[in-house]
Structures are given as structure tokens and as C-alpha cells.
């Protein structure tokens, strides 16, 4: 994802120039979808749409890099909205990945208690 920074910089001016063109890409041919109309009132969404065109391949590669099967990665990126793709492209490393390690916590907590007893740091009277 980081190695696309250069492409991004190069593209930014082009994006501005092509704003209108990029925005309506999905609308062409099959009518205008509801999301497009909802987005028209929201400029940040419109910008996310253009950015997403560049980001989908990056996010797919990032998912593969995190151990996702390549065929699944393609499918998963396809299930995301443009705004979600943009979010992942920018912040994947910082976003919480919830997996729970509650049982590890419990084991460590018990271990810590045992250690505290054993070393005399904690006493029952």
C-alpha cells in the first residue's frame, strides 16, 4: 500500500481533472443507482468513489499479504463499498482486528497470581 504513494501523488491532479468522469462511471449504461443520488449531496463520498478506483487492487494485495487466499481476497474487496475500500487502503494497519484473546488473558492472569504467591508478593492471612 505504501509503494503506491508515488502513483497517488501522480494521480491526484488527474483525479481532480477527471472528477466528473470518474464519478459517473457506475451510473453509465444501467441507469443511475440510488447510492449515486444519495452521494450527490455528499462530496466526501464522491471523492471516496474516485479514490476507490485506485485502491481496490491495493486493498486486495494487502489482504493477500495478511494471509487471505487470493480468490477470497478478490471476492472480499468486491463486497466493499468505495468508502470502505478507501478506509481500508488508508488505515488497515490501525483498524481494530477483533479476535479475542480473553482466554490468554485469563491464563496469564492466573499465572501472574501464582507467581505473586510463589514470590511472596501476595499473601493470604
Amino acid at each position: 500500500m505504501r509503494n503506491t504513494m508515488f502513483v497517488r501523488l501522480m494521480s491526484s491532479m488527474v483525479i481532480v481533472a477527471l472528477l466528473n468522469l470518474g464519478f459517473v462511471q457506475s451510473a453509465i449504461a444501467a441507469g443511475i443507482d440510488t447510492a449515486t443520488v444519495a452521494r450527490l449531496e455528499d462530496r466526501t463520498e464522491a471523492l471516496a468513489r474516485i479514490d476507490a478506483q485506485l485502491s481496490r487492487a491495493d486493498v486486495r494485495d494487502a489482504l493477500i499479504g495478511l494471509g487471505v487466499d487470493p480468490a477470497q481476497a478478490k471476492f472480499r474487496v468486491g463486497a466493499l463499498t468505495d468508502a470502505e475500500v478507501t478506509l481500508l487502503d488508508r488505515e488497515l494497519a490501525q483498524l481494530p482486528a477483533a479476535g479475542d484473546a480473553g482466554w490468554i488473558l485469563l491464563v496469564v492472569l492466573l499465572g501472574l497470581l501464582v507467581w505473586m504467591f510463589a514470590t511472596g508478593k501476595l499473601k493470604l492471612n
Partner: protein
Amino acid sequence: MLQRAATVAAALLLAAGCASREPVLAPRVAASAIPAQVELTAIPFFPQDEFQCGPAALATVLVHSGVATTPESLAPRMYLPARRGSLQVELIAAARSQQRIPYVLPPTLQALLDELNAGRPVVVLQNLGLESVPIWHFAVVVGYSASDETFVLRSGIERRKLERAPDFGRRWVLGKQWAMVVLKPGELPSDGDAARYLKSVTDVEAVKGAAGLAPAYRAALAKWPDNRVARFGLANALDAEGQVAAAQREYRELLALNPDDLAPLNNLADLLRRSGCRTQALATIDRALAVAATSDPLRPALEQTRSEIVAMPAGDGPGCGG
């Protein structure tokens, strides 16, 4: 992971003596006239495998919503092996691919309680660790008791985990009070936020197409009759489902209110083209092009539609009328 857990364990041991005893649920229940106690006992339970709380939590709410699925079949859609967990965004995306509308609640305790009272279990993001050393976890809230000040959760390997309200609150606040339900098309969430709901539906449409979403837009229109996005969505969904006459009625309804509304003009023209009604289609798209500004973001779509109409064979099909 072990090092992180050890840090958190030590910190939690130190903090154990100063946990808050302030009531959380009682004042909220008193203020909002909801029952003092709710527990959705029929919610299924999928004890999670290692690090698979995301698929387990999502399967719990999807199965309750009538989807036949399992955590094992959802995991390939959302699990990130190298991160040993799942992202909120992919939980949402996975719900979409199961013909449900994932709806992220407003981040308030009231919204959470209202959904439970509407009979829907709620997926929440919790931080079981510390703000600086987070241990992220998805669980499903299935009930609460104001008299006991507890929440009831399906969580990890516990079918009926009771969490003291202040503990739940702290873990949930550290997760930015993120909460999600899944809605069948036609079900509305309890809060009255039309824009938030319609965003969730149009996100499904953007990814999966409009077919199957007519009940979702119709429900929105029943509650917010003047909502333009909802009616436009209904028209698009009807069109996608092949209900051409009904879709036409909805586009014309929008145009009766605002004759220069470009998106319904475009889609109606496109629908007329597909119905073989060249004359009407051309008149409709030309009306749109006459009022659209040169810089209008929809203009390229209008021009594309017009060029497709012009490419039609001359003459109108049967049933096109005047």
C-alpha cells in the same frame, strides 16, 4: 500476544480495586420507559474457535435473522490470519453478502437498548484490554437487567455471559460504542434516523444491486413518505426486479413533485428505451438534458442514455401509448 496479555493482566490486577459502581442501566431505563429487564433467550450460540469471535458473532445474529449459515462458512469472508481477527468493515460486508442489511447503530446506550427491545440481538465491539494495549473482541448482546445492572452476552465460549454494566460500558466505550444489527429487507431499525438507514440500504445496493431491496425502500417510504432517496431506491429496486410498470409509477411520482429531477428522468428514459418506447424515451432524456448544467456530475450519464436511445431502431413498440 503473550507479552501484551501479561501487560494487560498486570494493569487490570492493579485496577481491579477501583472499578466504578455507578449504576448505568437503572437511570436509562427510568428515563426512557423501556422494560427493566429483557433477555432474548432464543438467540443461538456459536462458541468461538481461536480468534474467530467475528464469524461467531455474525453467525449468531444472521441465524437469528433467518439466514442458514455457520461461523465456519463466514470465516473465509472476514478473517485476517496475520491479524488474528476480523475488521468491523468486513463483518459489515459479510452480512451484506447474506441478503441482509447491516445497520451500524448510533453510538448510544439508548440505541442498543431499543434494538434489544425490538427483539434484535446486537453485535458489539469491545476492548477487553486497555486503551493503550487493546484486546479487541466481538460479542453479541442479547439482554440486560436494570435491577442487577448487568448485560447478557453471547461471548467467546460462554453461552450466557453476565457482564456488570460498568464493565460492559468501559469495554464498549473503548470500542467507540460500535454496535451493529442485521435487518431483513423490510425491517426498520428502532431509531428514527432516515439518512443512516438509507445509507445502509444504498450501500447494499451499490455492492449487490437493487434487486431484493424493494421491501427495504418501501418500509422507509411508509415511515418517511416524502423521502426522495427512498422513493428513487424503490423505483430502482422494482425495475431491477422486472416490475417495470410499478417502477415507472414511482419515477413519475418523483417527477410530479420535481419535474427537473435528473436521476429519475434518466432512469425513466432508460426504462422506456428497454420497453421499446423510443419517442417517449427520447422526450424524457431531452427534458433532462435541457435543464442539466454543463458541469452537472450526472450529465455524462444523461448523454450516454441519450446515445443509447438514438441507437434504437425507429418506431415504437406496442403498448407505448402517445
